[in-house]
């Protein structure tokens, strides 16, 4: 599939920038959702959701990232008699702000939050618990993507798609094999010095150091954070050319960098766009990396329950799901997608469907008490690199 | 006026326009004009709106290039010179004073461009402001001045450069009547004293007549008449000039004999027939309102009878409007002390001295 150039979300929030298909539509959002949550948590006045009654409603309102679903899938779903209305947001904060402010009267039935935000959304009552009886196709999901730490038992969400972080390098500039985050940092400070792009994402940047040193990437230990600060700011930063979450899709064809930290699906886009794909090598580095997931959920106050369940269940069908993969360039977590990809001559399948062994070692990012310090570290790195 | 006037030009301030033509798109603003302006002369360009007066002036100043013809100042062609190199200065209709400079800085502007030494600038600005009676306002900004004061500054700013020729484009149109009359006198005196050539644009005939040595009457980009004020007033070259100078009554008539015209309201005597006009031809006769007498009694000589349709008091004269039986409207302006006691609706007789009647060929 040939990708057209994408205008990607530039919200300096990892979750927004990491998805190539999440076309930028909603602008840069500085409205945080959390304080709205703090305010609404005190009052309990949430409009109740309608109960499913077996009669499928004639319309459905979906609030998702821009250009994040295959239009042909939507069209064929609508043939069942339910018209689907899409609205888009540009960041999880925007989604949360909207839901928090309207308290169940937003009118949205289906929403698409990122995994690490789900605990706080659930805690603040923004999500409707899922009744698995209405989701017959949940069995199509590979168990690897069920029962995640941020939503045990899939109480509120099911996987929409997921991705991970690795790095890609120009084999003409870096002639040795790089396999680990340790190798990445070593090359970044030697052969690739001044030609390195890091993601503009505090967690991801810190993860390179933690993973390379065998530390849990979600660590909150002071000593770990201090060590990361020391290395990243004083050693790594001067070698970095850019902190840019969307660099890779243009960076590969334009050869702007020789070493780039990147999300797997974005690397595939870059390779599809270049005329010299053989010059580049992508690595799922050991020992671990982020596993992020965007998820289907039903908003508290949804009025079209039956249609919402029917839509999610429809999207979980294998053939429908494969079209989604082809359109957005990331895996949806449905079983046997890799085999279907092979059948359909899907290019660079290994960049969308890593081996199970890779998936097993990934660590979902958490939003925890170290978040502020990670932001400070990234800011110090940027200041140091620019000085 | 200051008697320290430093601005008498030593060089020749004559201006010659030779076959000047200017078109904008397909509209001809100035059409083959030839004009000789003598050094030290006060000449007015008079004509209705849009007749090309400003355009002519702008060509002399250099803001417009003529399509054809040559312009000579003091005997030398200036058409190829940019405005800043021409030995003329302009007083603009809107004055165009620099709002960010004080009055003194405005006046000094031209001298500064010519790198006149600082102390000489100070002296000449002082003199020039004295001439314009604006010394007390030297440090004010132009926006804080009245119209008349601004005009004086504009004049001082032009005169300080001792131009050979000064161009003035309706400089008094923004002033009220009283101030305008005062300024007319001052300006005329100043011009006499300095001996600079003034080319003065106006569409106010009274202004032109009261100030000028000679008047150029223009219409549709062409010169209709060039002459002294007296000539233009007494002896207009054609019906247009006659109509433009003074308040004229036009009477369509036929020449019945070498010394009489037949009109719809009867016969009127004729002093002399212009050359080329023969008996039997249709003509247009003109008589100025100031020479028409209105009387309730039939005068001795020939007269036209009519009904008095209107009376208005104009201050220095009384204006009567008389309607004849054929529908001709005659206007008479009589000085109040010579006016009879008449009221509207009266039957009256209009008469005039035959020598005051001008006869022009009827327009085709």
């Amino acid at each position: 599939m040939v990708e057209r150039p994408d205008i990607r979300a530039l919200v300096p929030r990892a979750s927004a920038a990491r998805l190539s298909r999440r076309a930028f539509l909603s602008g840069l959002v500085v409205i945080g959702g959390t304080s709205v949550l703090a305010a609404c948590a005190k009052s309990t006045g949430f409009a109740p959701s309608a109960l499913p009654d077996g009669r499928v409603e004639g319309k459905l309102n979906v609030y998702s990232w821009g250009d994040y679903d295959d239009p042909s899938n939507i069209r064929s779903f609508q043939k069942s008699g339910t018209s689907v209305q899409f609205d888009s947001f540009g960041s999880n904060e925007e989604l949360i702000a909207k839901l928090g402010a309207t308290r169940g009267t937003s009118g949205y039935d289906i929403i698409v939050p990122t995994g690490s935000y789900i605990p706080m959304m659930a805690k603040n009552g923004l999500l409707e618990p899922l009744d698995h009886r209405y989701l017959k196709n949940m069995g199509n999901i590979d168990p690897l993507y069920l029962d995640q730490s941020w939503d045990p038992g899939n109480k509120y969400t099911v996987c929409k798609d997921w991705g991970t972080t690795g790095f890609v390098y120009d084999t003409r500039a870096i002639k040795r094999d790089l396999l680990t985050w340790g190798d990445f940092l070593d090359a970044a400070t030697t052969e690739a010095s001044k030609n390195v792009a890091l993601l503009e994402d505090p967690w991801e940047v810190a993860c390179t150091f933690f993973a390379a040193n065998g530390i849990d990437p979600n660590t909150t230990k002071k000593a770990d954070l201090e060590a990361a600060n020391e290395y990243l700011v004083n050693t790594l930063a001067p070698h970095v050319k850019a902190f840019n979450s969307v660099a890779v899709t243009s960076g590969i064809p334009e050869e702007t960098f020789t070493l780039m930290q990147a999300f797997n699906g974005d690397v595939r886009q870059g390779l599809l766009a270049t005329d010299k794909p053989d010059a580049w090598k992508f690595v799922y580095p050991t020992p671990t990396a982020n596993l992020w997931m965007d998820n289907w959920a039903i908003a508290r106050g949804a009025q079209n329950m039956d249609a919402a369940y029917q839509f999610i269940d429809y999207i979980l069908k294998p053939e429908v799901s494969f079209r989604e993969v082809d359109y957005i360039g990331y895996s949806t977590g449905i079983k046997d997608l890799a085999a279907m990809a092979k059948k359909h001559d899907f290019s660079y399948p290994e960049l969308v469907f890593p081996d199970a062994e890779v998936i097993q070692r990934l660590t979902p990012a958490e939003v925890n008490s170290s978040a502020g310090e990670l932001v400070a570290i990234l800011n110090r790195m940027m200041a140091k690199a620019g000085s | 006026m200051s008697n320290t006037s430093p601005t008498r030009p030593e060089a020749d301030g004559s201006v010659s326009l030779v076959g000047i033509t200017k078109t904008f798109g397909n509209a001809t603003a100035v059409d083959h004009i030839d004009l000789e302006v003598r050094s030290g002369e006060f000449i007015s360009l008079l004509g209705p709106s849009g007749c090309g007066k400003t355009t002519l002036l702008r060509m002399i100043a250099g803001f417009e290039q003529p399509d054809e013809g040559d312009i000579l100042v003091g005997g030398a062609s200036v058409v190829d010179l940019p405005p800043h190199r021409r030995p003329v200065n302009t007083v603009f209709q809107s004055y165009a004073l620099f709002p960010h400079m004080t009055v003194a800085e405005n006046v000094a502007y031209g001298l500064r461009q010519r790198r006149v030494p600082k102390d000489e600038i100070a002296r000449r600005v002082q003199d020039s402001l004295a001439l314009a009676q604006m010394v007390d306002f030297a440090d004010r900004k132009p926006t804080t001045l009245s119209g008349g004061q601004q005009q004086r500054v504009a004049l001082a700013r032009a005169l300080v450069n001792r131009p050979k020729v000064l161009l003035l484009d309706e400089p008094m149109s923004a002033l009220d009547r009283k101030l305008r009359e005062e300024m007319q006198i001052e300006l005329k005196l100043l011009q006499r004293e300095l001996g600079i050539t003034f080319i003065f644009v106006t569409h106010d005939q009274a202004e032109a007549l009261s100030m000028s040595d000679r008047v150029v009457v223009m219409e549709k980009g062409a010169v209709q008449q060039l002459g002294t004020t007296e000539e233009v007033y007494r002896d207009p070259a054609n019906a247009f000039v006659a109509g433009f100078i003074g308040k004229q009554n036009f009477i369509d008539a036929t020449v019945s004999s070498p010394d009489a015209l037949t009109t719809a309201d009867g016969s009127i005597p004729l002093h002399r027939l212009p050359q080329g006009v023969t008996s039997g031809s249709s003509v247009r006769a003109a008589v100025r309102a100031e020479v028409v007498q209105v009387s309730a009694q039939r005068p001795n000589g020939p007269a036209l009878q009519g009904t008095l349709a209107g009376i208005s008091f104009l201050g220095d004269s009384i204006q009567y409007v008389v309607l004849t039986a054929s529908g001709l409207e005659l206007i008479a302006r009589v000085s109040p002390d010579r006016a009879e006691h008449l009221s509207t609706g009266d039957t009256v007789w209009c008469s005039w001295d035959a020598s005051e009647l001008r006869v022009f060929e009827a327009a085709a």
Partner: protein
Amino acid sequence: MARRKVNGYAAIGFPTWAYVVFFFIVPLALVLWYSFGYKPDLFTAHANDILSFDRYAEALDATFVGTFWNTLRIGVIGTLLCLIIALPFAYWLAVKMNPKWRPLALALVLVPFWTNFLVRTLGWQIVLSPRGFLSDALQNLGIIHGRLDILYTQSAVQLGVVYNYLPLMILPLYVAIDRAGRPLREASADLGANRWKTLFTVTLPLAVPGIASGCLLVFIPLMGDYITASVLGGAQGNMIGQLVASQFNTAQNWALGSAMAVLLMVFTAAAVIVFGAAGLIIRSLVRRSRRVQLQGGAA
């Protein structure tokens, strides 16, 4: 009677003060208020039950100061470049161009504003890339040897901000030069000044208010810009807006972000005051040089 007058005045004045209050004072007061608070826990962006200046101490570290100087340099150079480019263009637009075409030219100046700020900045990423057409063209012309290496540098940011903010400079300059007007330029020529003299002694001095507002319109938003730097900047060209944005978005620390925003505002205002004072000094020097001291005058 008097009372009615007051009411009438208030009704007429309503939109003005409403604008000021709702679009300026309220947001500013909120930011100021947040800046004295703190971030109490992970899921809360700010709290104001304990007030302190601690966030300012936290914000004002070496990272902030270093990045501020970097931003100030980009801002000053960017504003000057905009001015240097916009001046001749605005002059040409107001003075030389056939008035018939002026509305079209002004519309074209604004064309970039029809697209999203981010999108047009991303456009430059394509233009400036080392394998892009500009790079190829410059290499073919022999102007550069080797690929164009400007993307993700400070020069790219500089170029990006000039592009993004240039219309904000052109428009007030155009209005100011246009207002100075042809009659005054003609009067200047009539008094013996050539084009350059007229430009420097009449047109530009009269355009000073326009120049000042153009500089403010460019400099102030430029100081707070973070999109241009994020897209084109790379590590060399980062700007202080990115620090503020990262606190509000990524760190969800509104207290610290607000303190940074307030500091940015204060520093930017200080810079404006310094430049403004320099401008006033220059103006008074210019005025002194053209002053005419009448001798023994009655003035």
